């Protein structure tokens, strides 16, 4: 009678006061049947990783519009790895140049989504990717 659902943390790292995008994505993921925890603004990488751990999420989605993504995204990843969460699916979005997206995708981020992305396609991507990972894990998780 297992009834597992995809749990997602939508987080805003650093000094960035704009969360309309994060809230939009959080709502869309909710409408796709996911359980979404939203952190609110101005979180440190350590806070985000600690929340991800306590909430035992499958996905961490970072939203950033401040330009500090090359600094903050890898630090969130480090904090997650230091808590044994290297297997969590990491995605991100915001105003991020294409080269930076490629660089982050080489540093443990599964996918970055830029402005103009169809929000349903984000949900579909997460569903497919998490389903694949769950199948790999078997019933171990």
């Amino acid at each position, binding site marked *: 009678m297992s009834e597992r659902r995809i749990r997602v943390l939508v987080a805003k790292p650093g000094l960035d006061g704009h969360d309309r995008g994060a809230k939009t994505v959080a709502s869309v993921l909710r409408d796709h049947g996911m359980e979404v925890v939203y952190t*609110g603004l101005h979180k440190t990488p350590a806070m985000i990783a*600690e929340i991800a751990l*306590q909430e035992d999420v499958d996905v961490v989605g970072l939203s950033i519009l401040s330009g500090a993504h090359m600094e903050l995204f890898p630090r969130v990843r480090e904090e997650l790895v230091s808590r044994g969460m290297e297997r969590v699916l990491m995605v991100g979005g915001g105003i991020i140049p294409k080269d930076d997206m490629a660089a982050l995708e080489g540093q443990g981020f599964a996918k970055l989504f830029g402005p103009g992305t169809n929000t349903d396609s984000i949900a579909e991507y997460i569903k497919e990717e998490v389903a694949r990972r769950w199948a790999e894990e078997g019933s171990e998780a």
Partner: protein
Amino acid sequence: MTDATRASLADRLLAGERGALARMISWAENAHAGFPAALEAFWSRVGRAPRLGITGPPGAGKSTLVDELARAVRAQERTVGVLAVDPSSPLTGGALLGDRIRMEDHTTDPGVFIRSMASRGSHGGMARAAVDAMDVMDAYGLDEVFVETVGVGQAEYDVVAAADTVLVVLCPGAGDGVQALKSGLLEVADVIAINKADLPGADRLATDMEESVHIRTAGREVWTPPVVTCSAGRRDGVERVLEAIASHRAHLEDHLVEHRRAKRVQQVRQVVGQRLDHALWVTGACAPRVEAHLREGVTPYAAAARLFEDLTRSLGDLVQEPSA
């Protein structure tokens, strides 16, 4: 998966690993096949933490008050686990879980563990998952366990009713005392906090609640829920709430074991009810048998009576029909 790996998650939980605490709560909420065996492994450590249920209408300030209560617990150098339950969408099954935003000062405090849980709408399943999650937090060694729900609906009611002490949070401007009475919240309350007491109407609401409590308890040998006022957002009056909770705990002290056993009976009832329902109607033969009765043209009540008779015959002493 082998039993060995199941035991190891329980071992890691008992060894104080936060990741194992988080994962074991997931097992509880997913009704993971390994959970019953894991519970067996840590059951001897369950029952130490006092459990506080917090409920009330949306916007009454529950999360803010929980935040302040957690701060007070930490000031006494005790640790606390908070389970924050939010409703799932009945349409998509998804949920937005935002209660922890109001508790963010505690995020990096190792003495506080906050977990959001979606109600997932399943009848009885919510209460089971929440009680299991509280057992996990308790076994992990957190000194206090809080569970917070929006005070609507049977499922949420079942969740808080499983706590040792139930704190009902109300605030002025969200309906009068009669509405609080109608909602049934007062029946489950051990302590009533009127939050946002700096707003107009708070004194009136407190008086109404005292009156309602008096009407319910006068002349009966039952606990009289204290009514206290506070403004959690201004950190005002929180100590009065704590004192009221402490007074209920002191009242429970002599019969806490019986009090908890009675609540465990309800938990077992839910578990058995779900399994029985599944065994009778999903995997069992009740549905085709009832269909056959109905095909003969009998009324639904007659079909039910026939099935009930068949069932009670095989259940023997366990069943006692209500006298008409």
